[in-house]
């Protein structure tokens, strides 16, 4: 069993640095990087034999309650300013283009129903999804193409990206607000219209699996 977060230490040439030093190193790496880094990416930069997971744990508690926090984003880690201090950073604010209602709803549908086809998005919204809406979300790097559906026409699906999680401060897609309630209420089910020939039934995974078992979301 190999742990990618742990540099192989079967036959270490040099002993790994002390944990306090490993923590410093992880701190420096995360500090220098604006994007989240996975434990494996961090490990790749550290000397052999380092225990990234443990160092991250120490670091997380060290930054607990500070002005900067260690957050988990998907399977990555990043340092971010504490959300309650956002008002101090007025001048750092990046003005994002205001999203249309269609774009916001489409984004939410993709996040909660992923992987989801365009036809399914249209079915939920009851209206056609314009190309521009999808393009805008792709451009923001909040959604990307997922696997093709194994149904006639092999339609592409959409899933959200790690950048989406980072932007909205989500640990993972499982932490989407209200996800559990929506699932329990059956509102994430794909329920074909009565009488309609439902080709969707077989190919849409039970929605729990959609998100929890969506390996492509966090792959690479």
């Amino acid at each position, binding site marked *: 069993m190999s742990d990618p977060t742990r540099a192989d230490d079967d036959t270490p040439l040099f002993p790994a640095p002390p944990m306090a030093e490993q923590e410093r190193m992880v701190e420096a790496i995360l*500090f*220098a*990087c*604006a*994007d989240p880094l996975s434990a494996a990416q961090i490990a790749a930069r550290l000397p052999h034999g380092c225990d990234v997971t443990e160092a991250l744990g120490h670091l997380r508690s060290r930054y607990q309650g500070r002005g900067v926090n260690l957050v988990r984003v998907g399977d990555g880690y*990043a*340092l*971010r*300013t*504490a*959300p309650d201090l*956002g008002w101090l*950073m007025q001048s*750092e*604010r*990046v003005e*994002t283009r205001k*999203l249309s*209602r*269609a774009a*916001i*709803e489409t*984004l*939410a*549908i993709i*996040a*909660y129903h992923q992987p989801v086809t365009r036809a399914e998005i249209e079915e*939920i*919204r*009851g*209206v*056609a999804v314009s190309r521009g809406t999808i393009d805008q979300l792709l451009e923001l790097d909040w959604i990307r193409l997922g696997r093709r559906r194994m149904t006639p026409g092999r339609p592409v699906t959409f899933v959200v990206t790690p950048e989406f999680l*980072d*932007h*909205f*401060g*989500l640990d993972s897609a499982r932490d*989407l*607000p*209200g996800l559990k309630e*929506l699932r329990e*209420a059956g*509102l994430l089910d794909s*329920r074909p*219209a*009565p*009488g309609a020939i439902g080709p969707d039934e077989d190919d849409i995974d039970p929605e729990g699996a959609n998100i929890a078992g969506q390996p492509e979301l966090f792959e690479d």
Partner: protein
Amino acid sequence: MNDLWDSSDDISARREAEALIIDVDGFEGPLDLLLTLSRTQKVDLRRISVLQLAEQYLGFVEQARQLRIELAADYLVMAAWLAYLKSRLLLPPDPAEDGPSGEELAAHLAFQLERLQAMREAAARLMGRDQKGRDFFARGDPTPLAVSRKTVFDVSLLDLMRAYARLRTRDEFRPYAFDRTDIYPLEAALERLSRMVPGAADWTSLQAYLPEGWRGAPARKRSAVASTFAATLELAKQGQIELRQSDTFAPLHLRRRAGQ
């Protein structure tokens, strides 16, 4: 008190209905319109009267028609479908007819509305979250990962040895005759013979003209004989000497040409 509230509700409901007509372009499709209309029922979406909703929608479409507001095709498709749904809900089920019952269709519409509403709320909650670059921030001055290029030369010991071997044996491939020590060159034979011709008045064996040191070892002798013979042919051609051989493979004799 209640009346007062009710009447004010009526007013706001009427205002809403007017607004609906005017803002028809603002709706994101018929489902969105239905969702908006359903709010006037002021009940949980799960307990909504789909029949009432269908009537509201059909009323809206009728009003729009009176106001000569052009409605997009999908609004009219929805209107037709709701009219059909209404008839299914009102008329006793026809046993001869296949397909889903009016109740099933109504339940599905209610589900769609509830789902759309849920997604809308989810979207609002999502956008209400702390957002990067607005509420929390990444490192303002990230250090780019310095990439240093390192070139590794792919050369093995074998390459090295081959190169050396190639160099050291290069001469072995060259066809240079003068590298070979056992060759008596034609030029040398010609020069030597020319010098000796004036003294060769009598018939003398070719063997006698072989240079010192080239008469013993067979390889050297072969080379000297060949070169000297070739030289005699050349001198004979020039008319300086005469050649004689008594028989095939018999010894070859030469002498200075008479009168020279």
